[in-house]
């Protein structure tokens, strides 16, 4: 860290996360701990979210300058009066998955989806409609999805929506063997955990946005190299998740964060092609009325070799 960062005056910004502190936000904590945010002239406040926290609306309405939403959410909310711009996509591969008990008969997602199983998931989410389109799913019984794991553990025939690095890890540590079917294998792979801001904020504070993205990239690089420091910090803030669980989760999510794209560009790198695919898929699923004309307009990212991070003081103050 930089001891007299505050005396030099840093731009205060806050980030609305969409869940409580856990490895999916590792880059943020790493950037904070390594002083990367400070170097970038940022004073970042991370605000935890939860299953019912209206993160997307808060960001879209300008209450917070930055936040985490999913790609699908970004497209939906923009169609209803929002103007969100994606800056950084944490996951190249969507961590959304369906888990079943190890002892259950289903060996693939397709098998499961064609069966008459009971699946606890957020019905009507694009991926569910996508799977229905692809595999039928007429016999499937969809039931309410809640954050609680108890029902899944108790019912060996239940399947449940999850994040590959979250619930399965928890269950593994509790010796409940599960099988996990990542949804992306079906061909539906939206950006998840996308850092966004509003178009207005981006236009008024391009330097702050740039500094934020650059810092986050470095944060993630550091976290991928060694997550233990950040995990320890996050575990302090999240009484329900142990450091071991965080370390395990960090390991599991790694292959979703890194791929050829990130290796050739940077962590969090997005392509217009991927956004376009998502928009088209959502449109054909009836979740989006029109595909945005200019797909580039919904995401913005500074080039990889954009020089050293510059202090963001010339931007109008944001908080």
């Amino acid at each position: 860290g930089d001891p007299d960062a505050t005396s030099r005056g840093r731009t205060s910004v806050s980030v609305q996360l969409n869940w409580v502190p856990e490895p999916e936000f590792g880059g943020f904590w790493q950037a904070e701990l390594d002083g990367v945010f400070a170097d970038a002239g940022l004073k970042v406040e991370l605000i935890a979210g939860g299953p019912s926290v209206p993160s997307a609306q808060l960001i879209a309405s300008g209450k917070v300058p930055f936040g985490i939403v999913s790609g699908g959410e970004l497209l939906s909310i923009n169609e209803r009066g929002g103007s969100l711009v994606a800056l950084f996509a944490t996951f190249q591969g969507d961590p959304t998955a369906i888990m079943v008990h190890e002892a259950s008969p289903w060996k693939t997602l397709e098998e499961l989806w064609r069966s008459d199983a009971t699946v606890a998931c957020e019905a009507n989410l694009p991926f569910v409609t996508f799977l229905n389109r692809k595999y039928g799913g007429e016999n499937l019984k969809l039931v309410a999805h809640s954050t609680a794991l108890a029902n899944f553990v108790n019912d060996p025939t239940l399947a449940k929506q999850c994040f590959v690095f979250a619930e399965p890890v928890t269950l593994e540590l509790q010796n409940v063997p599960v099988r996990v079917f990542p949804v992306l294998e079906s061909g539906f792979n939206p950006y998840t955990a996308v850092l966004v801001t509003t178009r207005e904020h981006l236009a008024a504070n391009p330097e702050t946005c740039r500094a934020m993205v650059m810092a986050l990239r470095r944060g993630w690089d550091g976290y991928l190299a060694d997550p233990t420091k950040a995990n320890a910090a996050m575990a302090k803030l999240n009484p329900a998740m142990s450091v071991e669980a965080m370390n395990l989760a960090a390991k599991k999510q790694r292959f979703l964060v890194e791929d050829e794209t990130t290796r050739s560009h940077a962590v969090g790198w997005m392509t217009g092609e991927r956004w376009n695919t998502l928009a088209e898929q959502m449109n054909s699923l009836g979740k989006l009325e029109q595909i945005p004309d200019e797909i580039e307009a919904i995401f913005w990212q500074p080039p990889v070799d954009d020089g050293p991070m510059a202090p963001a003081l010339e931007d109008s103050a944001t908080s």
Partner: protein
Amino acid sequence: MPRIAVAAPPIAVVAATVLLWWLAVRAFEIPEYLLPTPGAVLEAVWVERDRLAWGMLATAIGASGGFAIAAALGIAIGSILGLSRFLERGFYPLTLLLQMVPLVALAPILVVWLGYGQRAVIASAAIVALFPVIANTLGGMRSVDRDLEELFSLHRAGLASRWWRLRLPASLPSIVTGLRIAAGLAVIGAIVGEFVSAYAGDRAPLGMVIVSAMREYRTDLMFGAIGLAAIVGFALFGIVNFGGWLLLRRWHASARSSSD
């Protein structure tokens, strides 16, 4: 009072509210993902009418089932606690506990016991609506005129007779208030119960419609579904009011059609 005068005030107030809502959306340019216009809500309800009608039916069953259970159990428990200060002190806090446990936390247990679907929804509606009935029944029982109690003591009336002939009728005004509260709570209890324990699909209850509309930022559909759920609540509320009026109009001040 002519019938029109009974219906006019709520209709006028509802109309004024809708107008204010519409004006607010226009004036403050509230984006659709926060608050839709009344027109958009109506349109969404019309477009999705089939699905919403089924949803409303399911939610109505859940809410009224839960309401009925809460009413019966609440009056029974309140009456029993009213028998002695000892019972009251011991068990009243326990019944309060039930109200303070978030449904999401109870849901797994409910689902394990009752399975997904209507039964768990009815149970959660009942749990949420129970305490006000207990509290108001107990409040009523505790306020029974001591002089009338003496009349019954004098004739050595048994507990059951005293309850049926004295305490229950004397507590009715208070119980009706409790049931009014329970009517609204049963609806919200059913909706929240549906969030955590209902079946999705074509005939999904309104709670499911609300969550999925919420996830898609379809505020128009969401508020439409909430409005329909509220209609269920108003119907229950109306039934309570009418029943209370029938039982109380001949003798109690609260049911008189006052001079104003």
